[in-house]
């Protein structure tokens, strides 16, 4: 049995619960990061390396599409809770602004990705329709460069200090 003196302070307990490894949404966030990493890798391959073998590129493209759909579903189910939990805790307007920018980037990635997948969905439903050459070019451009910007933005989002506990330093949790 632990003594009362060794139990964490309520503020620290809150800290650990809300920011520690077992906080709500961590598994979802980690899954999203992994999926994003796979999407980034496959996307970079399609953009820069697929020309060496178009037919192997088809497998990578299919993987990119499927993982992208899974990412979209997971992201949409997770982002609401993350906004609700995270917004009140943002202590710096710059961080808030950059976070909204990051959200906008991910929204653009998802939207352009779904737009590019739309002709395939129409085809599988029995129709033939596709974007114009110019529209495809713009979508691909936005999707690629926004992804790279989002990757950088995500790392910055994670790296920036965005909380400041209102407790005295000496009384900070020992854990």
């Amino acid at each position, binding site marked *: 049995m632990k003594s009362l003196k060794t139990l964490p302070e309520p503020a620290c307990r809150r800290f650990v619960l809300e920011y520690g490894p077992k906080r709500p949404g961590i598994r979802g*966030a980690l899954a999203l990061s992994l999926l994003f*990493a796979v999407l980034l890798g496959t996307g970079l391959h399609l953009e820069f390396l697929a020309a060496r073998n*178009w037919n192997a590129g088809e497998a990578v493209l299919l993987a990119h599409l499927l993982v992208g759909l899974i990412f979209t579903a997971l992201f949409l189910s997770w982002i609401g809770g993350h906004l609700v939990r995270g917004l009140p805790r943002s202590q710096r307007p710059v961080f808030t602004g950059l976070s909204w920018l990051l959200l906008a980037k991910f929204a653009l990635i998802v939207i352009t990705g779904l737009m590019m997948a739309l002709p395939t969905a129409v085809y599988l439903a029995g129709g*033939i329709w596709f974007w114009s050459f110019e529209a495809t070019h713009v979508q691909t451009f936005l999707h690629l460069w926004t992804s790279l910007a989002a990757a950088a933005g995500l790392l910055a989002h994670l790296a920036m200090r965005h909380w400041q506990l209102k407790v005295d330093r000496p009384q900070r949790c020992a854990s």
Partner: protein
Amino acid sequence: MKHQFKTHLPAVVLGTFLTVVFIIGAGILAPGAPEPGVDLADVPFYQLPFGLDAAGRERPFWPSRLQTENGRLADPASIQSAAKCATCHRREFEEWAPSLHAIADRDMVYERAVEANEDLLRDGIEKARFCEGCHAPGEVLTGRTNRFKSVMPSDAATEGITCVMCHTATHADPQEGNGALTLAVNTGVDQLSDAMILAAPRDHARAFGATKTNTLIAGSDFCGACHTETYDSSMSRAQNRQHVQTTFSEWRNSWYARNDVNCQDCHMAPDPAAYVRQIRSGDLAKPERYTHNFVGSNYLMFDTSLGSNLTFLRGGILPGLTEARNTELVARQGEATRALLRTAAGLALRDATVVDSKLRFAVAVQNLGAGHNLPTGVIDQKYMWLEVAVRDASGRKIFHSGAFDAERGETDPNAVIWREDFIDSDGKRIPDHLTFTTAAITHVRPGVPPKGEDVVAYETALPPLAKGPFTLEARLWYRVATQQFVYNTLKTDLIIPPFELAAGQFILVAGKETKP
């Protein structure tokens, strides 16, 4: 710090890195794909009667100068039919389908001419690779131009100059001609499924050589690879190179080439006749888009008044088209063809005199709108002639040259005619386009150069009671085949109608030049 950062950074960075490494590693470790294309040894009984090239290599497509990028034959399964491309590229397909390119291998005039040549000589069928290299590259590249047909036919191979043939071109030699194209049909065609193409159409475009190919096929050099034709000992009796088709060099030496008006600008404009009129007016702006109609000069293949004869001449209906749609497209292309032909030529009276009861006059046949000679191409069958008729003041005809007998399909043998002749080893004219026995090419009258004119002088004795003023009716006619060829080779009595390129009526006032 930052549990989140510590938690997510490895996932993001390593995940990305490992994904790329996995894909590259899978590509490296996977069993190597066989070299694309078909090895010569895998085409049973493929004949190679022409020997090795200077470097000691087999020449599977000789005497055509056509090549694949890796020298191997093409797998018929890798050459998509145009009807398949039409799934998404419907507009381009319906522009191309009525064109001469689409029926280059199917049209009966060509087919019968090739058969006649193949029957002439030993190795005639293999020699026909020379013809098929331009007219049916799919047949040559897949190894079907062979006396033993060991390769199955395919829609694509019979489509003449089909989508894949142009859109995989990576090199052209318009000086060499005779089909001197390199086509990346083995490596440059993606095998993506339709659903994946729709998800990544840019990759589909890149797979077809995009940047390199699109630059090449936008220029006249590409056209010149086939629209330059010479006969030599590899396929004829000619001992030195005989220039048969010089359309590319006619253009290259012309005002049009100097002013960056190339083949595609006129022949792929949405309205070629309007574009030629625009050029003639001095406006050199490029067309707003390029269509795949390739409007040319063969009015016969679009003459819907021929009824079922037209379907016969065109070699049937292309896969991917219904009969009704085919008729509609052919009729539309026919209008464009006739309109284009009417923009090409003009007539002017250069001189008229009466001396010693002889009427002398000169008519200038002008090339006003064509970026190449008039006529151009292989003009042993196609020919142009001038018909002139002079009447006196009472309307009585006092001179007539160049009449056309519409019942027998014969042109006045004394007409002034622009035509080339195939000459055999005995110096006799070959009337039936027998390439393989041609020893020399001569010209009755060479074509009228671009923006040039050919002045034809006439002289006739005036009847005693003939009184002026005299009226001259001049008509410039064009015809795509001689009647002799139709009888001997097509084995039909169809009369090939001529087409009037230009007409004019002049009053012959002695000593004055006039235009109609």
